[in-house]
């Protein structure tokens, strides 16, 4: 076994993923190659260090919290599926806790939309009332209420006005 192959096999060897034949070949290479053996020792040391992470003492009070929850559950054994679903929804929305940033972002967005809407409305009414089209529409709307020929009348009005300007 050459070094290139051996280096690839070291990690699987430590995970117990090699067959007997490969294991034997790797072991014989490691015993004769200092560099590969160094790599092997390094990785093995990582294993050891992880194994040596001590288990920590768990905090106080966990059992009380668990028992309380269980007691509540036992007192009201059958929750309807609807309230369960609502509880799940609650958990879901709980992850969307609205931070100040988001609230501010929504505020700004609403303000911008309001401004934009206002501007568009103003712009539209302005363009309608100043252009001939706007005048025509106004006349038409007003006249069509009681005169079926309002279309013609409004048109005539505009034509007359245009000629006047000439």
């Amino acid at each position, binding site marked *: 076994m050459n070094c290139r192959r051996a280096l690839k096999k070291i*990690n699987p060897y430590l995970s117990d993923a090699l067959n007997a034949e490969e294991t034997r070949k790797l072991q014989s290479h490691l015993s004769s190659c200092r560099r590969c053996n160094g790599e092997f020792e*390094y*990785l093995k040391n*990582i294993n050891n260090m992880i194994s040596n*992470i001590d288990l920590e003492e768990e*905090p106080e009070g966990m059992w009380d919290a668990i028992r309380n929850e269980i007691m509540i559950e036992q007192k009201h054994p059958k929750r309807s599926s609807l309230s369960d679903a609502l509880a799940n929804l609650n958990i879901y929305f709980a992850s969307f806790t609205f931070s100040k940033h988001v609230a501010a972002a929504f505020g700004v967005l609403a303000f911008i939309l309001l401004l934009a809407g206002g501007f568009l409305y103003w712009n539209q009414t302005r363009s309608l009332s100043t252009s001939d089209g706007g005048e025509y529409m106004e006349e038409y709307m007003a006249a069509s209420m009681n005169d079926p020929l309002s279309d013609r009348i409004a048109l005539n009005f505009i034509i007359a006005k245009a000629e006047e300007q000439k």
Partner: protein
Amino acid sequence: MAEQDGNVEVDLIRKASSGDIGAFEQIFLKYKKRIYNYCLRMAGNHETAKEATQDIFIRVFKGLKSLRDEKLFGIWIMRIASNHIKDVISKKKHELKLFIDKREYTNNSMEDYNSSLENHISPDDNPEEKLIVNENKRILLTCLSEINQNYREILILHYIEEIKIEDLSEITGLPEGTIKSRLSRGRAQMAEKFKYYQNKEGNQ
């Protein structure tokens, strides 16, 4: 002896399953350390680990009736823990992406790790040696918190919780070959990060 232990446990599980809280407390006492430490290493901070451990035991109690074979309780409870903590972590990540400055989070978890390290120091150690061991452990925990979550889980369960590969296969539902390759990849990532951090600290 082990057989007897098993029988006692089966008895406790049956009692708990019919609503006996005292019996369930015995089960809790037996498994709390394993579950808590697993959550701690997966989530990286004590607060989340505590909350998750509580939720896991509540889930376990509610689910006891659906457990078919009491002898498989050890595997079953780890499966619940594994699913739950992954849920919690992905929810946290989601929140993180949306709202929280990432740097703040990593600093917090680093502080957690550092404070947890203080417990590791035994007073009789030679101070210089202690410093190096301490430093290595800090780096190690940082590396562990940074590698791929799937690899981290397997490394924690196999090396810290000392669960056999065949049992891991039961817990995760993955074939043994996958478990082994995750062990290898996780170890490779750990080695790479460990080298990187050691060089970085060495240069400072």
